């Protein structure tokens, strides 16, 4: 197999529970490695997906049971991770205050950090709410070979 050469598409579904985050990170990490991303980028992709899933579990499902379906598509240039849930609640990312990462300790707020990191770690984050659930699309382009 030529590393990063083949295009591929993978799809799996997990119960929306925190104890499956480890498996989810392994799944997207292996896909990112197969696409030929650097170790640093693989970690970033795993972390962004973890933050996205944690948000879905905490803010969209809010303790209700359900699934998160994850599709990973590699087109030779960028990796697209699509997360789909069927939760009744939406979580409008625009309404969540962006944390001030330069604020001193006394003024630091704990909220919004996951979404902030997701945006920093990926090249593009798109959120599409619908009556059937939420769709979150994370994209990371392949860095040029050094």
């Amino acid at each position: 197999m030529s590393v990063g050469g083949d295009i591929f598409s993978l799809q799996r579904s997990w119960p929306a529970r925190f104890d499956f985050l480890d498996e989810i990170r392994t799944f997207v990490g292996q896909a990112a490695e197969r696409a030929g991303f650097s170790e640093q980028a693989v970690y970033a992709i795993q972390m962004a997906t973890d933050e996205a899933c944690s948000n879905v579990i905490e803010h969209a499902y809010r303790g209700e049971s359900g699934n998160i379906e994850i599709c990973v598509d590699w087109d030779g240039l960028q990796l697209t991770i699509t997360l789909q849930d069927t939760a009744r609640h939406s979580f409008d990312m625009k309404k969540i205050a962006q944390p001030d990462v330069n604020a001193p300790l006394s003024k630091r707020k704990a909220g919004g950090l996951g979404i902030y990191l997701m945006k920093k770690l990926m090249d593009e984050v798109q959120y599409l709410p619908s009556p059937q659930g939420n769709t979150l699309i994370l994209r990371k382009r392949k860095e040029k070979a050094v």
Partner: protein
Amino acid sequence: MEVNVKEYKHCVLVTIQGRVDSATAPKLNEVFEDLLNRGRFKIVVDMSNVEYMSSAGFRVLLSAQRACRRYHRGEVVLALVPPRVLEALDLAGFTKIFRRFDNLLDAIGYF
């Protein structure tokens, strides 16, 4: 994730091993809460065996730091932070909030 606590006269060494995420962060928080309840506010966190830490782990560290620094009674310092974890901490602006050490002796000796 495994957490070990070693108590010294002047500080406490908290060693975290493995992966800290939304599933495991509450257990880490319990360890800090227990130390704070017992008046231990000078804490060294050995991060050398942390394979992964998400924002859930960062929030636990932030809340512990806030409690420890209150009334200038102590501080949480980080030792041997792996490069990937450090990059994420830096993105989150946490490297300004935590003093860091490259070896455990210096970290423990700080207190």
